């Protein structure tokens, strides 16, 4: 399911313009990270993908659906959105019900709902917490419940808004694993993040935004080494990318394996 964004402009009702003509094509199965300073328009952009916001001008297509001509409830079949703060998303009295809510609401038969819930709970390591009230869990596990409840909707496109904020190393590894499994299943994953090392280690394509426009867009290794341009949108290159540059390595590296391989040469 390809995503096509064409000359998208958006102005909030308050009169503040947040997007100034964004055009992007994201192919089915791509793993894309969106980076950029606070206020660059990242969240405004992704809210257009599931119809939470509609273009002031330009258009957004998810496959053959124009988001302006389809209600949010229908777009939910194609685009899942994991909010930054899980507490804005959770409301059920136990984890199992919470995770089942989405697929049930999409009208899937009971058996399919059960399969989807089971799969999403396994992927997020929640299988032993089916009967727990989400608010008896730590914020870390609540985050995983929020992720599971979107995964269970089985959408071809999944959006994560700042998935690693406030998470410790163990949970960041869990989230990275969820993204890996989605990649193996051919899903499209779009993630907004300030965590540039997480971005470098888990995404093949990086889009840097600044002041409501796309500043850079391309393969992670091509984008993450552009220190001076990234600095204009307050992004530092990943730690190992910076280290590689300082040591004079020829190619841009973005993870441990690439760094060590380049160093040995």
């Amino acid at each position: 399911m390809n995503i096509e964004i064409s000359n998208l402009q958006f102005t909030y009702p308050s009169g503040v313009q947040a997007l100034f003509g964004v055009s992007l094509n994201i192919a089915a199965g791509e793993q894309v990270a969106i980076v950029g300073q606070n206020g660059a328009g990242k969240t405004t952009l992704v809210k257009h993908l599931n119809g939470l916001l509609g273009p002031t001008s330009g258009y957004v297509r998810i496959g053959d659906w124009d988001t302006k001509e389809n209600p949010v409830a229908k777009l939910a079949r194609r685009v899942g959105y994991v909010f930054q703060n899980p507490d804005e998303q959770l409301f059920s009295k136990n984890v199992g019900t919470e995770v089942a809510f989405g697929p049930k609401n999409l009208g899937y038969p009971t058996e399919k709902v059960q399969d989807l819930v089971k799969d999403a709970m396994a992927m997020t390591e929640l299988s032993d917490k089916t009967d727990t009230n989400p608010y008896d869990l730590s914020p870390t596990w609540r985050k995983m419940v929020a992720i599971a409840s979107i995964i269970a909707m089985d959408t071809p496109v999944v959006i994560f808004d700042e998935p690693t904020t406030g998470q410790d190393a163990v949970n960041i590894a869990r989230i990275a694993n969820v993204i890996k499994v989605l990649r193996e299943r051919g899903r499209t994953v779009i993630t907004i993040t300030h965590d540039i090392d997480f971005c470098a280690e888990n995404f093949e394509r990086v889009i840097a935004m600044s002041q409501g426009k796309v500043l850079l867009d391309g393969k992670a290794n091509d984008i993450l080494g552009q220190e001076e341009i990234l600095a204009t949108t307050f992004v530092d290159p990943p730690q190992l990318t910076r280290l590689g540059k300082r040591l004079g390595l020829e190619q841009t590296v973005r993870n441990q394996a690439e760094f060590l391989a380049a160093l040995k040469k």
Partner: protein
Amino acid sequence: MAFINLQNVTYKYPLTDAPALQNLNLQVNEGEFVAVIGPNGAGKSTLCYTLAGFVPHFFKGEITGTVEVAGNESSKSNLHEWVLNVGLAFQNPFNQISGAKYTVFEEIAFGLENIGVPREEMKTRVEDAMSMTGISNLADRSPYSLSGGQQQRVALTSILVMHPKVLVLDEPTSQMDPIGTREVFGVIRTLAEKGMTVIIVEHKVEWIAKFADKVVALHNGSVLLEGKPQEVLTSDLLTDKGFGISRYTSVARKAQELNIWKPSQLPVTLDEAVEGFKR
């Protein structure tokens, strides 16, 4: 006698079985800059609440052991006296912003109003604090119209304006971009150099290594390890327990196995990594 002295502190929140802090001992000297690290659930925020008097005065629950700051004991003090010595910036600025004020300026003045500071002095103190944290341009905005990173600066400023002896910061830069983080650490370091005692919970270990005098690693409600940043942040004891570790440390550890990293000391910062790999 340490300026902050926690002896054998064990604490349980109401209606819970497992203690959030367990036989915790911590001594901090006046003017020290101490960073606290630990995985989720280690007790970092509870430690902040304890230093700030919210545990046990606001949260109730069972506490044993002693908590002393500047010679006063928490259990024998009132929260309204205690907060004059210790200021806490919450992890989530939403939980701190009063909701009672229409502008950032008024929000920051709120604490001073409550303790009856004269109008002219209040104005000067608010302006000074805002310029220190770089938010003078936000004075007339509503606190709720700001981004997460901007709200964190407002929350920090509204604590600084109170001139506390001890500043406790619970992940003050979690919603900031790298430039914001750098600026806030700069402000905190300046305050520490002027003699303020600073306790900061922070995951960004590269910054800790650059700024902190001491690092305390918490695990399961107790101190697992404390000492100089370099020693604590590169310790083997931190691996596999959910502590955030600098990529420079992990890659050097791997390189050590492969015999590419020669120095005995592992790096935490970029400069240390560059120097070590060049050898």
